[in-house]
């Protein structure tokens, strides 16, 4: 706290977005549209550490400045066609060329040994730091799309595109993708004449899309130049090249139905089946390779699921009390269908393996506490016979699959009630069947391994081993415990199922008659609560953020623990909306 009164940081951001868009109507049927967009972003920051502050003592104060710049360009040139024949036939189509690119660069420097108050690096007595980098990427695409509509009853659409990305090897920069979709508005058919059903629409689609890696230069070998020895520049092998790395392709088939009843009930159902091939992943080499990693198209994964949504107006439109209820639920399951050489790939505490969920946890399986001495137990599997025994030696325990962080289903409920001037909205979210790794328990539920840390209170149903309580969930506690009982295992893998009251808002809108006296257009007051209640067995603060961290797509952060994210806050807000 002592430092806060002296030291500070400052930042300025400069951001320009410029568009040059125009459209030119060539004739009744053809239009040319051009979108040309340029953004320029620049940020400068200053960090000042006073020579009199604690952290400034060693350097006699320091001043550092940093500036970065980002320029993006986007061009889209499109020729559009639209025509209607004989009243009922409508055709629309376009062909377009698209290009976008991105360049980022930064530079920073710092000096140490400053007179108090000085913000200028030139005034610093000595060198402190320097930094700077640059990167870029580009995309270009050619695309055509056509759609046909007959009498608002049948609708079909087809598209085809070729995409190129600078992130891939020169051998494989381009990929071609397509989609086909159709819909039938049954309720517009002459034979369909019931007033109970106001909408019935069937739809289906099939298509293929491409994904790029999050690395900007996935195809290259890197001899990184960020090193030096004794002030001489050095090159260090890093990523290993793969000139063939190419687009990840997802083929997605989708069918759905939309149903409207009595003008009060809406129901939609959708089912999808998605096959992804050429899954992109940065595969780590064993350290003996020297090179760190290689981007590969590692395999195939299948996703399938169903999404249902129901929306009901509970009362007639003329009822003074109005209640709208919405409910949705979705299931998804995935399975790895293939991996390069069918070899498993490790990813932090998870492991990709053919036939398994991509978010499968892979760690030692906790087997409880030895009732005789309170020692931790893990499963040990004999590699030959498959026989499962237990061990108190962490190193001997077997790594194995112990569940997934993919939920069985999830959904929400939204209710809106209105009566006279009052409105009450409530939203609930729920999720079932996912497991999250509660990594913070390695520190706070460590059976005495870290006696100087805060320790969590044992939850309901947990108990500590003692001679009098031999059948316990928690091992014996020892000062500076070195039994490794707190090392990564399914002990800290917890069911993160939850049901959460995401928001409740009660509002009151004042009548306009009252307001006009004060020359107000509108006045509304509300009381709103976020995340007021969560029903869960998860022992850390927030199962939801723990899971969102746990389910990064491959290549992104897979840490997946409850400490790496801020929990969602519990919050009560009172507000007034005034309009003049």
């Amino acid at each position, binding site marked *: 706290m002592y430092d806060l009164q002296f030291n500070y940081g400052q930042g300025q951001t400069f951001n320009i977005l410029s568009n040059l868009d*125009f459209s*030119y109507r060539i004739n009744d049927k053809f239009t040319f549209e*051009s979108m*040309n967009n340029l953004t320029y972003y620049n940020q400068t920051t200053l960090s000042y550490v006073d020579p009199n502050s604690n952290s400034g*003592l*060693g350097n006699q104060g320091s001043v550092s400045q940093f500036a970065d710049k980002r320029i993006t360009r986007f*061009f889209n040139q499109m020729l559009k066609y639209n025509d209607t024949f004989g009243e009922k036939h409508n055709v629309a189509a376009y062909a377009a*060329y698209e*290009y976008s690119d991105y360049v980022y660069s930064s530079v920073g420097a710092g000096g140490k040994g400053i007179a108090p108050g000085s913000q200028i690096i030139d005034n610093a007595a*000595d*060198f402190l730091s320097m930094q700077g980098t*640059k*990167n*870029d*990427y*580009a995309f*270009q695409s050619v695309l055509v799309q056509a759609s046909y509509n007959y009498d608002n009853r049948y609708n079909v659409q087809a598209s085809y595109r070729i995409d190129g990305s*600078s992130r891939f090897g020169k051998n494989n*920069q381009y990929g071609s993708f397509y989609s086909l979709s159709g819909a039938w508005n049954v309720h517009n058919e002459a034979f369909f004449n019931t007033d109970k059903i106001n909408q019935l629409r069937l739809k289906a689609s099939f298509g293929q899309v491409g994904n790029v890696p999050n690395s*900007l*230069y996935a195809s*290259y*070998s*890197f*001899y*990184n*130049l960020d*090193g*030096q*020895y*004794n*002030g*001489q*520049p*050095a*090159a*260090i*092998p890093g990523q*290993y*090249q793969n000139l063939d790395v190419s687009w990840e392709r997802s083929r997605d088939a989708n069918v759905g139905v939309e149903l409207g009843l009595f003008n009060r009930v809406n129901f939609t159902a959708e089912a999808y089946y998605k096959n992804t091939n050429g899954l992109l992943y940065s595969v780590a*080499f*064993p*350290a*003996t*390779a*020297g*090179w760190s990693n290689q981007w590969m198209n590692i395999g195939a994964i299948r996703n399938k699921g169903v999404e249902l949504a129901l929306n009901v107006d509970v009362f007639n439109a003329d009822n003074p009390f109005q209640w709208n209820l919405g409910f949705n639920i979705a299931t998804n399951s995935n399975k790895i269908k293939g991996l390069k050489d069918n*070899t498993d790939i*490790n990813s932090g505490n998870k492991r990709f393996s053919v036939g398994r969920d991509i978010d499968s946890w892979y760690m030692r399986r906790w087997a409880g506490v030895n009732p005789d001495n309170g020692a931790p137990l893990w499963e040990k599997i004999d590699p030959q016979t498959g026989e499962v025994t237990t061990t108190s030696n*962490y*190193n001997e325990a077997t790594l194995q699959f112990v569940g997934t962080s993919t939920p069985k289903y999830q959904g929400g409920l939204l209710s809106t009630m209105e009566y006279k001037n009052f409105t009450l909205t409530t939203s609930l979210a729920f999720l079932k069947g996912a497991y999250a790794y509660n990594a913070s328990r390695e520190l706070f539920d460590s059976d005495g*391994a870290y006696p*100087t840390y805060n320790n969590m209170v044992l939850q309901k149903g947990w108990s500590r081993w003692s001679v009098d309580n031999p059948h316990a969930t928690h091992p014996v506690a020892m000062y*500076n*415990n*070195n*039994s*490794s009982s707190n*090392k*990564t295992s399914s002990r800290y893998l917890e069911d993160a199922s939850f049901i959460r009251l995401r928001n409740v808002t009660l509002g009151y809108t004042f009548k306009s008659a009252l307001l006009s006296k004060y020359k107000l257009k509108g006045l509304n007051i509300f009381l709103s609560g976020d995340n007021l209640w969560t029903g869960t067995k998860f022992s850390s603060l927030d199962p939801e953020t723990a899971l969102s961290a746990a389910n990064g797509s491959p290549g992104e952060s897979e840490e997946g623990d409850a400490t790496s994210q801020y929990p969602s806050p519990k919050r009560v807000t009172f507000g007034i909306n005034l309009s003049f």
Partner: protein
Amino acid sequence: MKLSKIAIYGILGAFTLNACSLDRAPYTALTNESIENTPGALEALSLGNYHTLKSWVENWHRVTEYPSDNVSLSGSTTDNLFYNYNYQRLVTNSRVNNYWSNSYKIIAGTNAVLEVVKEGTDAATDQIIAENLYLRSLMYFYLANVFGRPYNQNPETNLAVPLQPQDNPFEIKARNTVKEVYDAIEQDLLRAEKLFTAYKGNIYGNVYAAQALLARLYLYKGDNEKAIEYANKVINSGKFALLSTADYTKIATAAPENNPETIFAIKFVKDVDYASDGWYTIGSMYANIDGSGWGEMYASRSYLEEVRKYPEDVRYSFIKPVVVNENELHAYYVNDDYKYESIVVSQSGTDYTYTENGTSKTLIKRSNGAGSFEYFINIGGKERTVLIDKKLDARNGYPKYYILKCSGQEGQAHLWSPVISRLAELYLIRAEANAKLNKIQEALDDVNIIRKRAGIPTAGLWTTANLSGKSALDVVLEERKLELAWEGHRKFDVFRNGKTLNRMYPGTHIANQNSYLTIPATSNVIVEYIPEQQITLSNGVLKQND
């Protein structure tokens, strides 16, 4: 109408012209294409291996020094270095994994260089080959000793680490035996010895460094004649000289090039190689200097008692007891639970008195034979050694005896260029080899060179007459501990000689019933586990240690 058309085509044309190319290459790295056209790329690749040494050395120090009896940790820590220190090995130890990874990164880096150059092209090329052979040998030497059992324990069957002779990331090799790895090191070093064409200074691989490592390799193998031969090559080269007694602390504080004793050191450049005010350095664990450093691991009681036997011993200048009260003298001793205790004493001449149960008593004192005294106290039913200090600051009950040997280069709090070989070690290699060949006088002569330089009075030097039951080897090993502490030798010195490491002194390595107080050379725990992550990545090709 016409004008707008021109504008449209103009804009379109401009965009398409500049838009077509998707060629982008990294700015922060050379690629396979650009490296061939970059002059000096080979030198840069070779320097890349030295660059990685700077990351390697951090965990090299933790895996070699923390399992020694030179250090005492004052708390438990979430940092996996805890398991290097307390011998509670963990297959997921991130420090060990990092050490393994950086070692092989350097090995692969040297392979990448060695594959593209041809021996005999020119002097500069041969120099590059020799330097890279030296670096590769250095990596294998420590890998073999960290992950493989000592050479005198069945080197033909015990496994060390895989030899990875080629730059091919897809080739996963099994572990070679200790003997195979030692043989490969010997071949590389002998080849390097012939290829060095220049001496670029002691911060680059050089012929003397290769000879020094050979001397050590032969000593570890038990080939004592060869060890002496190679120690002599370095000692007699005249290239290096022991620092004077007065300049002794320059081992740590001088820039390595200005240190006549250093044969090879990994250079950390002032300011440039000094991030975060030195908080994440090797020295930061040992001391807090100018507000920087954790200062959680202290000199062990066993080291302190040995180095303080002669107050003149300059090696104690690398220890800084942190005093909280200048006016209060304490006699520090160790109780039966291996915890520090102290009692207030007052000095009169060479005597120290204290009060026990209301009566005044005097500490037992014994002459060290060289004009000074060692002190003892009779307490808790037995006589215990005491060290007398002004009242010391303590952490969790462990008095702070900061270690300064890994800090303070060129005045920067925790800057340090770790020393791999220096001349003092060569004298001690020769001494040990002579002791094992039963050439006692030669062995003691070399030990005495080191002791004299340390400032120990003549009465404290060894003669065949004053060994009083100690063997010459005991004397050499004691001297190696005193002289080479915190330079990554001690653990190997104990176990390769079949001795038992004695850790019956205060520190958090003693916690539960399963703590290791003594570790015999036959114990499984004297070698680290192969990192589990590496076994998994190798799809089980790498076999685990017992």
